[in-house]
């Protein structure tokens, strides 16, 4: 039977990677495609983005983030390095755990940004909750900066995640 502990561990890694692709793929879509394109779109066509595409993209974006952190924590627990990773492997002298731990902390900061900064502010921007025009403008700025912060953090986060198994685990 292939349904062993090792297979379940792999299955959660697979789900974790797919969720992460959904999350970071949409994060990069927002930052590399949608936001820079908005000034080039005629005003009468802008609602196609703000009323249709952005809400759908934000749905998969925030639930992708949730699924990534949940499957990641399960994976780390199943693999036996959760606690070592949380304390950045300090004292354990295992570079892999330090690398994955730093990646986990960066990912957790990004998950927090999605659920507690970007999404509450986007709800004001998209009119899902009531806000004055001034509040909307401020919310758009806050959400935009948090999204850019996550784009910035995604680079070292993925470096840490990928190097844990594919560099630090091999170099000791």
């Amino acid at each position: 039977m292939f349904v062993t502990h090792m297979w379940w561990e792999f299955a959660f890694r697979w789900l974790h990677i797919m969720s992460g692709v959904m999350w970071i793929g949409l994060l990069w879509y927002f930052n590399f495609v949608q936001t820079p394109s908005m000034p080039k779109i005629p005003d009468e066509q802008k609602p196609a983005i703000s009323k249709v595409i952005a809400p759908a993209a934000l749905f998969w974006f925030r639930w992708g983030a949730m699924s990534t952190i949940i499957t990641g924590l399960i994976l780390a627990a199943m693999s036996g390095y959760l606690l070592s990773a949380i304390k950045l492997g300090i004292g354990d002298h295992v570079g892999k755990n330090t690398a994955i731990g730093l990646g986990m902390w960066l990912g957790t900061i990004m998950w927090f940004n999605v659920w507690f900064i970007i999404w509450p502010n986007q709800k004001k921007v998209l009119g899902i909750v009531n806000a004055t025009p001034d509040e909307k403008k401020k919310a758009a700025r806050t959400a935009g900066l948090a999204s850019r912060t996550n784009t910035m953090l995604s680079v070292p986060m993925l470096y840490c995640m990928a190097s844990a198994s594919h560099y630090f685990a091999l170099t000791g």
Partner: protein
Amino acid sequence: MKNPLDSLGQTVLIGFILAAVAHLLISALSA
């Protein structure tokens, strides 16, 4: 002063610098 995160290019560049910092930090913490 302009916020560097207003530029996508600078955002990615800072990300690469942070990746280098992360590498050094991992090496130092796990030594």
